[in-house]
């Protein structure tokens, strides 16, 4: 077995110039919200870093997360990052299939036991002992537990792995849960989004490669670097919100003028992600810039949060009719109370007479 290449060697072999490499390091520093002074240290660390083994397991998912990552702009910092890791198991990308693929995974896990990074996309069904999703006859539940045991850390990619996502939406027939609901003895980083921004997972991997550490996390286990601000905080349409200029429909004058989409159900004010700053497709745009409100896909239970086109203040009340029924009940009680009071008044008057 040959000694794995360092990242510096790997880059040079691929013809990446020193200038390009430093540019990548600067981008990495920026991603991790580090000062420019850290760029040389990042470059030095990356030069010497070995390619870590990465096992990527897909469970209840749509492959959208992987599509997001692989279809990111090319060449890209994300692409470079993937040249720097040893992706030893990924069902969609690897050439091997069936038992050969599973064997490759087991070998990689054995060779790097305790040190590999486990990336998971998709939620894990737990109903009926996890029988709703199996790979090679093994339930996702069992596969995750086995793989997590030897992992240095786990990155839950996408909202399904991070929070249960779509499979966990009401009524959740498969008993889908998030990775962090099952694994408690390994560090889990949630890179949520449906799909997540490729740059964000690249940033997490870059930090792991550079410093051997995982990023600081927010209360939902997401990297603070990317999930510290709401979409609303960084949205270029924010001034319209403050001025009270809103699009009332997707094709009115307000929409054409680029006014705020709050009234059309935008969940930007309660959604933490980097879409408004990092953006998508090589920093070209993001949903709000394309004219659609944020659907809050990087937040837990976004699918059950009352509808994508229902404005935030409108609540998610189940029935206005129930309020009417309560009012009717109030009328009956009020009338009953008045009748009782009248009876008592009459009785008192008669007694006095």
């Amino acid at each position: 077995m040959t000694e794995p290449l360092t990242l510096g060697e790997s880059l040079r072999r691929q013809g990446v110039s020193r200038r390009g490499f430093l540019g990548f390091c600067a981008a990495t520093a920026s991603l991790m919200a580090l000062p420019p002074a850290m760029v040389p240290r990042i470059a030095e660390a990356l030069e010497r870093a070995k390619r870590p083994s990465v096992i990527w397991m897909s469970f209840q998912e749509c492959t959208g997360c992987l599509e997001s990552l692989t279809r990111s702009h090319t060449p890209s910092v994300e692409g470079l990052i993937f040249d720097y890791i040893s992706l030893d198991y990924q069902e969609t990308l690897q050439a091997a299939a069936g038992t050969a693929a599973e064997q490759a995974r087991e070998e990689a896990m054995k060779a790097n036991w305790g040190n590999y990074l486990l990336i998971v996309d998709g939620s894990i069904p737990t109903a009926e002992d996890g029988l709703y999703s199996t790979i090679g006859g093994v339930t996702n539940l069992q596969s995750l537990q086995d793989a997590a045991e030897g992992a240095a850390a786990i990155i839950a990619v996408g909202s399904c792995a991070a929070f249960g996502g779509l499979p966990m939406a009401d009524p959740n027939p498969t008993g889908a849960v998030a990775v962090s609901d099952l694994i408690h003895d390994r560090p889990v980083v949630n890179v949520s989004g449906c799909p997540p921004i490729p740059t964000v997972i690249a940033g997490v991997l870059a930090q792991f490669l550079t410093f051997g550490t995982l990023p600081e996390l927010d209360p939902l286990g997401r990297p603070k670097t990317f999930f510290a601000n709401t979409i609303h905080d960084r949205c270029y349409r924010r001034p319209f919100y403050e001025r009270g200029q809103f699009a009332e429909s997707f094709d009115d004058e307000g929409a054409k003028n680029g006014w705020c989409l709050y009234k059309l159900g935008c969940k930007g004010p309660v959604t933490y992600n980097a879409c408004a700053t990092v953006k998508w497709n090589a920093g070209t745009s993001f949903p709000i810039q394309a004219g659609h409100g944020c659907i809050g896909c990087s937040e837990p239970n976004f699918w059950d949060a009352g509808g994508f086109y229902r404005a935030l203040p409108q609540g998610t009340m189940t029935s206005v009719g129930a309020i009417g029924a309560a009012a009717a009940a109030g009328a009956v009680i009020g009338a009953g109370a008045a009748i009782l009071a009248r009876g008592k008044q009459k009785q008192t008057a008669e007694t006095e007479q």
Partner: protein
Amino acid sequence: MTLLDFARGPALQAALMIFALGVVWRAVGAVLIQRTTDFSQPRRGTAERVAGGLRTTWSRFFVSEALEKRIHFQHIAGALWHLGFFIVLLLFVPHILFFESLLGFGWPGLPNPVILVVAAITLATLLAVLIRRMTNPVSRIISTTDDYISWIVTALPLVTGIMAGAHLGLRYETMLALHLLSVALLLVWFPFGKLMHLFLIWPARYNVGALFARRGVRI
């Protein structure tokens, strides 16, 4: 279910139901309760009694000159507080959207910075009237637990709303959830405390005005 989901959904639903039940209960009870019969000969006709009732409903907004000096503070602070509260309640766009979801129609709102300034002035006024209530001997003596609870449940939505709007304190979604929960608390307390005056004050003023008109007195 997150705290915000709970606040936007079940909490608000239950609070609105309790609010509707309580308000109608008390209003119907007040309307149907037996009143003493006035055996005196009416000095004015029905039309004049109605006019008298309506006039008093309006004229009670203004204080007589004789009283004005004595209650100047309450008059100004009270007007400022009520005006500010209704501006914030009815002209803040997210609030309008909430009413729209219940009523099926909305209306134009004011820019957020304007609302924030009005809310801050309103809260300051609310604090001033509380301080006066607690320091003025007469006000202190006649104040009941109801007054203080009503003050708290009214102030909380303002405080949490300002904090959410200005991104102060906790994370926005938590502040928004707390704001909605404080509104739910206000709705639950509303029918059973002095806040119910919002609905009862109009028939009460009308009745007084109509009664005086019946006796030939114009107020």
